[in-house]
């Protein structure tokens, strides 16, 4: 891991216009720095602005105030070095698995034969051998997620943004995919921002866990995860240090989740 800064958000603020016309602050003064090659997990209560943070980094959304930099450059458009696995299914329903996965290289000017060959390799790596000709509606939710993963990873992104990529998977597949992702990450050295609801997953995967406050989101705390690598996701959660970290971070996170929960309840009641 080098000391080069891959992603830097400084006092990033994002305001949306809510459906009733008012201005709504999703993120306020969020500071976040991700070193090159670092795996950062972001946790926080629902609606706190995690997806919005990723949208800012990707260049899909511009901050209302503050700055967002990727490798030192202010983000002004969607960058080529970014890969983004979306929270919602975003595979193209009119493209077969093969065409979906080959989409990135094709868009970037690689010729069809080459792109398809690469795509086949990635399809195999995510365990979808034999499903090349299938259309997304013929796959299960978890399989679609894997297509999305292959579709993103085939571009070798230096910045990898992942928004709850494994939440639709069953526990076993999930552990498999998590380990697979860690292996891939170790071999590519990309900088990852990994959003999740699951604190265990966050600690198990990441070098650093960032807790975001209930909306408007800002950083509540950052925790370095000093567990050795390579890690085995299925086993690491039984280590004493893991349990210690979990207790520590959960303390922070719980308060925010409660705030968020109370708010939602009051909104429903009123």
């Amino acid at each position: 891991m080098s000391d080069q800064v891959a992603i830097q958000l400084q006092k990033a603020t994002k305001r949306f216009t809510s459906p009733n016309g008012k201005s709504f602050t999703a993120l306020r003064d969020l500071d976040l720095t991700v070193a090159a090659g670092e795996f950062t997990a972001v946790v926080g209560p629902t609606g706190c602005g995690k997806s919005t943070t990723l949208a800012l980094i990707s260049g899909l959304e511009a901050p209302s105030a503050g700055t967002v930099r990727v490798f030192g450059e202010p983000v002004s458009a969607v960058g080529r070095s970014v890969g983004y696995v979306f929270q919602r299914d975003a595979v193209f329903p009119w493209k077969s698995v093969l065409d979906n996965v080959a989409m990135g290289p094709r868009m970037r000017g690689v010729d069809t034969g080459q792109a398809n060959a690469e795509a086949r390799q990635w399809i195999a790596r995510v365990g979808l051998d034999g499903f090349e000709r299938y259309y997304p509606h013929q796959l299960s939710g978890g399989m679609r997620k894997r297509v999305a993963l292959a579709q993103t990873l085939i571009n070798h992104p230096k910045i990898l943004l992942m928004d709850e990529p494994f939440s639709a998977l069953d526990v076993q597949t999930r552990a498999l995919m998590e380990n697979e992702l860690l292996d891939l990450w170790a071999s590519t050295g990309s900088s990852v921002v990994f959003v999740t609801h699951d604190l265990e997953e966050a600690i198990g995967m990441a070098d650093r866990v960032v807790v975001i406050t209930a909306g408007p989101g800002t950083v509540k705390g950052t925790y370095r995860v000093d567990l050795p690598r390579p890690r085995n996701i299925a086993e690491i959660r039984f280590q004493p240090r893991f349990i210690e970290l979990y207790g520590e971070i959960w303390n922070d996170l719980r308060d925010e989740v409660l705030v968020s929960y109370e708010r939602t309840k009051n909104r429903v009641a009123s």
Partner: protein
Amino acid sequence: MLVQVLRVVLAIVILGTWEITTRVGCYGPDSGTCVVDPFFFGQPSGIWTQLVKWVQVGTAQGPLWEQIAVTLEETVLGFAIGVVLGIIFGVALGRNRLLSDVLGPYIKAMNAMPRVVLGSIFTIALGLEMPSKVALAVVLVFFVVFFNAFQGVREVDRDLLANARILGASQRQLSRHVILPSALSWILASLHTSFGFALVGAIVGEYLGARKGIGLMIATAQGTFNANGVFAAMFILAVVAIVAEALVTKLEDRLIKWRPNAITEVSI
């Protein structure tokens, strides 16, 4: 199998009732007690005779196949032109905010008008030949396809657009790989109705004034109080419409085999 049997039974019951009610007491000495007068409402056997006569002898304005061919040609031309224009305008307005804000109210106003009336204008302006019928068909088809294409472009999933941009798509690639395929299912759904509209345009155009065509056959039959003739022409139209519908469905299945089931088209 059961469905097919029931279908045939239903047809027999309806045609049988029609035939019998237009026969009993309609002929001979007690012809005053007729239940349904075949003079006004036709009669299946009469319609059949009419069809056979058209096929064997031809119609007042020439052989039957010629009338069908003329009407079909107008319909297909009007359909094709209307579809192409509808897609072009729909996609253009769907992608361009300014354009849609400027033209939107006019298109809505034009859509609210009963456009069939334009048939009279076209007959005056373009004469009794083919162009006036094609023009009417184009106008009818255009709006259906336009609204669907427009809606289709507007309904494109934002996440899919975002994903394509992340994957490296340029504006043109966005149109080709995301916006058009997404809009295509809406556009294709509209083709079912719009072929029907094209047929209506051609027929009404002919009815208003023509030298050939099924619409003219209907007008002629009406002029001679020939109810059977009107029904026989309707029957021919129905067959044409069913064949066309089957062709459109086939086209749709080919173009969007990725879709589990059809979207129902927008009602306008």
